[in-house]
Every structure is written in structure tokens, then in C-alpha cells.
């Protein structure tokens, strides 16, 4: 079952998920998920609705604990929410939530630097300056710093969410649908920023998207999920048109369950 993305052992896997299962009640939302990503690489997760993409991300960031299996971040086992290393990792992972989850009770700049303010690692003045810098990076005006999330449009909220996710300069960036609901120009802008961050800072990025085109052009790796299982994963460069057709068909969701890709060229990457 396990097929590490990077077969070459020159990059030890930075994020390593092994046989992860997660259930709510009796219902398995994640089943035997494996994921290996070297440091500094980018990965897109794609899959139909309710595939378990968001849940996987919340497991990675430590909101949900694993029912079985393991999550290693740079060798630290952080499978459980109370894992000793979890707190340290909170500083090193940034996450954008699907619905942004900005704090309505706080101003935009307080949202972006909430962690720094609460832990006292930055003065409020410095935090605000830092927040304004980040707002500029995601293309928002300085004035928006003093608004509350409710005063922002959906696209603006998404960008504040991105700013919050990168505010601690994390080594892992998890983005749940960073471009959903944005117009193509903005969506391109955000994807460019993400790419730039990964390139310049060596950040490892995992991004959930619904857009096969974006996944193929902007990310080095692709993981496709269906029904809580990994359906396909590999290098985006390796996807040829036959693959693409299958994956796209899959994504556009026939309700007939996974289509086994016996005809695909890289059967070793096919899970069903």
C-alpha cells in the first residue's frame, strides 16, 4: 500500500503520514492514509466533496488525533493532540481553514498575529506592523488592518486567512482551498504568493484544491482522495493525459465509487 512519493532517498520525508485512520462515531473518514512529502516540496490534494481532505489537514495541524496510524513531522510523532511536541509544532505550522475561521471578535491585524500577541512574543505595536506587511503581501490595503472580519468581502477574508497562516513564517503551510471563491486574477495572485513562499523560504506546502489545472501547474506533487482513502498520488510531472482524463472524471464525481485505473500506466500508484 505504501508508496512514498519520493522514491529517491536524497530527501528524507519531512511530513510522513503512515496508515492514518480517523473515524467519527462508527464512520471512518480517513482509512489507511499514507503521505510522504520531502522538505520544501509542494503538494496539492484533490478529491470530491466529503473525501476527507479537510479532516486530513486538521489531523496534520493537531486538531484531531489519529485513531490509528502515525503522523511524523520531521521525525516527531504528533499523531495525538496531546503529543508533547505538538505545542512546539503549533509555531511551525500555519493553516488556512476552508471557511477561513477568522476570529470575529478581533480586528484583522489581531487575527493575523493572534498567536504572537497571546504568547507575548511580539509587542502589539510590532505585531500590527508585521500584520500590515503581511496584508500588503496578500494584496490588501493597510486600512483593512483595523476592520473586523465581518467588514470584509469573502475574497478579502480568504486573504486575511492566508496572512494569518503565514504570520509565524511556518515551515509547514497547510491551505484548505486557498483560492475557492476568488476571481481568476486574484486566484493566480494567491497561487503565485504560495509558490514564492515555498521557493524562497523552503516552506513545505500542502494545499487542497478543486482545480486540476491549478494542481498540475502549480504543485510538484498531487494526492487524490476519495471516500477517506488515497486514490492516487505521485508527481504532477508524471501525470499524462490518460491519467488526467481519469482523475478529472473521478473528480467530477460519478457517484459510482472509485474507478480502478487498470489501464493507467503507473498502476503502482493506483489505490482502490
Amino acid at each position, binding site marked *: 500500500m505504501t508508496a512514498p512519493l519520493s522514491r529517491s532517498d536524497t530527501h528524507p520525508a519531512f511530513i510522513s503520514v503512515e496508515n492514518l485512520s480517523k473515524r467519527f462515531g462508527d464512520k471512518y473518514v480517513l482509512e489507511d492514509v499514507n503521505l510522504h512529502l520531502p522538505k520544501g516540496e509542494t503538494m496539492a490534494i484533490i478529491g470530491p466533496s466529503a473525501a476527507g481532505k479537510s479532516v486530513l489537514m*486538521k489531523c496534520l495541524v493537531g*486538531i484531531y488525533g489519529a485513531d490509528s496510524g502515525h503522523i511524523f513531522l520531521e521525525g516527531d510523532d504528533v499523531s495525538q493532540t496531546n503529543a508533547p511536541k505538538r505545542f512546539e509544532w*503549533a509555531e511551525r505550522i500555519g493553516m488556512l*481553514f476552508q*471557511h477561513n475561521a477568522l476570529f470575529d471578535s478581533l480586528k484583522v491585524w489581531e487575527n493575523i498575529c*493572534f498567536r504572537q*500577541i497571546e504568547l507575548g512574543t511580539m*509587542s502589539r505595536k*510590532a505585531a500590527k506592523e508585521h500584520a500590515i506587511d503581511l496584508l500588503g503581501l496578500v494584496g490588501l490595503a493597510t486600512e483593512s488592518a483595523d476592520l473586523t472580519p*465581518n467588514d470584509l468581502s469573502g475574497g478579502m477574508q480568504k486573504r486575511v486567512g492566508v496572512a494569518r497562516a503565514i504570520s509565524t513564517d511556518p515551515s509547514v503551510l497547510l491551505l484548505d482551498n486557498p483560492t475557492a471563491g476568488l476571481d481568476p486574477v486574484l486566484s493566480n495572485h494567491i497561487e503565485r504568493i504560495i509558490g514564492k513562499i515555498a521557493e524562497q523560504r523552503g516552506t513545505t506546502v500542502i494545499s487542497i484544491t478543486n482545480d486540476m489545472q491549478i494542481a498540475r501547474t502549480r504543485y510538484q506533487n498531487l494526492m487524490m482522495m476519495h471516500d477517506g482513502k488515497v486514490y492516487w498520488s505521485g508527481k504532477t510531472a508524471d501525470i499524462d493525459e490518460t491519467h488526467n482524463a481519469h482523475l478529472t472524471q473521478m473528480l467530477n464525481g460519478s457517484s459510482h465509487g472509485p474507478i480502478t485505473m487498470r489501464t493507467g500506466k503507473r498502476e503502482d500508484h493506483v489505490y482502490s
Partner: protein
Amino acid sequence: MSKPQNVPGNVRSKGLVDYLNDENVRAVLYQIVAIGLIILAGWYLVSNTLYNLEQQNISTGYGFLDLEASFEISETMIDYSAKSDYATALLVGLLNTVKVSFLGIVLCTIIGIIFGIARLSSNWIVRKLATVYVETFRNIPVLLQLFFWYALIPGAFPHPRDALEPLPGVLLTSRGMYLPVPMADTAFTMMGIAAVIACVVIYFVKKWAKKRQDATGQPFPMFLAGLGIFVGLVLLAYLAGGAPTDMSMPELKGFNIRGGYNISPEFMAVLIGLTVYTSTYVAEVVRSGIQAVPNGQWEAADSLGIRRTVALRKVILPQSMRVAIPPLTNQYLNLTKNSSLAVAVGYPDLVSVSNTTMNQTGQAIEAISIFMSIYLGLSLLTSLFMNWFNKKMALVER
């Protein structure tokens, strides 16, 4: 309707039927009819009552307020004796109502918030205990609860002769609780002034601390500093006033206890009953307020490595308050109004004193009109305060 009618063909002049079919015209007509009916009904009632009162030779008016009340009231917060007039008696009743309502509101808020949060605890026992508390006391009529507490207190505690003394100087008897209180002294006036000064000083220190934190990020231990300033200044005033140590100790004299401060069983029953009953509703308001905040807010705070207690205070509660304040206002109003049930256990609240007054004077309508206006006034004051508080909370969010 005020728009210029420049639609061609709409030049036909309007007849009466057209007017009656016009919604706006009809709405006005209905209102005129409704107001007319109310005035008619009111006039009928008033004239009828006046006629009947005249027949029974009862004079109307509020002149009776200046007459001697000639009845005793068991607990008063101001100087009162049977020689005082009815107005003073009613004021005593009002103050007793305000006292029990105010304390009840403060206590039920504190207890309600604790139980509301406890109902969402991840600890099974805490959660279940809170649920049992809320479900039990919420579902028993408050009047029965008052009877229960009133039966419990005299029943559970001994006659003054064998008073329990759980703490030195504190006596528990079937006639209520007795606390030692310091003898009146000028030092206490000075301490009061010192307390006010301390509050002003704390206000400015807090402002300075916030400014400093904004600039440097250095947090300031405001709670400890505030406590220090307050206790320090008050203590200083006490010492400057000659540190009086004379206490009025409750003591058994004959068959009764003299001295000290008495908390009557009636007052205790009303306060406990109203507090417990209303706190269950406050707990539900707090719980639903917290639950109304999307789970994503908890998760986002969690993903930032923020502790749950901090997330509760900084992220969740401010948002719950927004939905919780209006229903909380309702509960405060209910508590104030329910305090009129105090008459059932003999606590001399406004209704109880008004009852006695109207029995003695026969001025039922006047007495009722007085306490109804007072309850209305109290309720409006509570509403006004809560509206102001609501606005303030909403402004903080901007």
C-alpha cells in the same frame, strides 16, 4: 405614494372604493378604529370604578401616603418604625425588593456562567452534575422552590439557644444567620473614600499598562497590582482611622440573639430560591451562547497553539455575549418580577408591604398602581442598562 405619477393612462380619478382598497389608507383606518376601541374600554373601566368607589364611600387619591403606617416591618434597610408613614413603608418594601433582586442577579450570573461552562466540560462527571443541577431546578416552579428553602432553613437549624457556630462569631439558627459586624466608626467612612480613590488609581494604572503593552508587548500583572492598590489603600485608611476593633458580636440574650447582623430565613429563602432558579436559565443562555459560536473558531485557536481557556476568554465568550445579552436581560427581568413571590414566605418586599397597606387603607387601586409602576420602572431600568451594555459590547467588536 409620493412618487410623481407619470405613467400614462393612470389618469382616472380615484373613487372611495379605490381609497378603501389602498393598503396604506386601510392601515391608518384600522389603527384609528383600534385606538378608539381602547379609549372607549379605558373610559368605561375608569368611570365604572370611580362610580363604585363613590358608592362605597372610599376616597380616591394618594393622600394616604402621609398617614401613619402603624405596622412593623421585620427587616428594613432604612430607619423605620410603626410611627413612620405609608410612603416610608413602601420605600422599605422597595429597597428590600431591590436588595434581593440585585444580589440575586449578581449571584445567578456568576453561578449561571459556571454551570453553563460546566455543561460543556470535557469531564464527564462535571458535565453530568451540571446537567442534573440545571434540569432539576429549572423544572420545579419557583414558588415551590421558595417554600422548599423556607421550610428547610428553620427546619435544618437549631433554636437560637443551641445556635450552631460554624465560624467564630457566625451563628446559624432557625431564625437565620447572624454575622459579626464592626461597630460604626469614622474609620469606615475613611475606608469607603479610600476604596473610591483606589478605583480611580486602578483605572489610570490600567490605562497606562495597556499603553505600555501596546508599545512594548510587555504584559502587566493588572489583577495583582489592582488588588494590591485596593487592599493597600483601604488598609491604610483603616490604620489611619485608629484601627477600630470593636465588633458587634451576635449573642444570646434571653430567648433571642442580639447584636451582629441578621440575615433572616425569609431573605435567605428568597435569595437562594431566586438565585438557584434563575441561574439554571442563565446557564442555558451561556451554554447556547457558547454553542452558537462555530466550532471552527475553537479549531482555529487550537491550530495556533492557543490554550482552550484563553480561546474561551478571547475568542468564544466575546462572540457568545453578543447572542447572550438579550436573553440574559429577560432572565434578569424575570428574577426581578419573580421577587414579588417573596410575599409567599413573608419577606417584606414591595408587594408584601403594599398588601398590608391596601388592607389597612382600602386604597387597593392606588397601592397596586404604585407597585405596578415601580416594577415597570425597575424593569425599564434593567432593560436600559442591558441595552447600554449590549451597545458597548457591539462597539468593542468594531
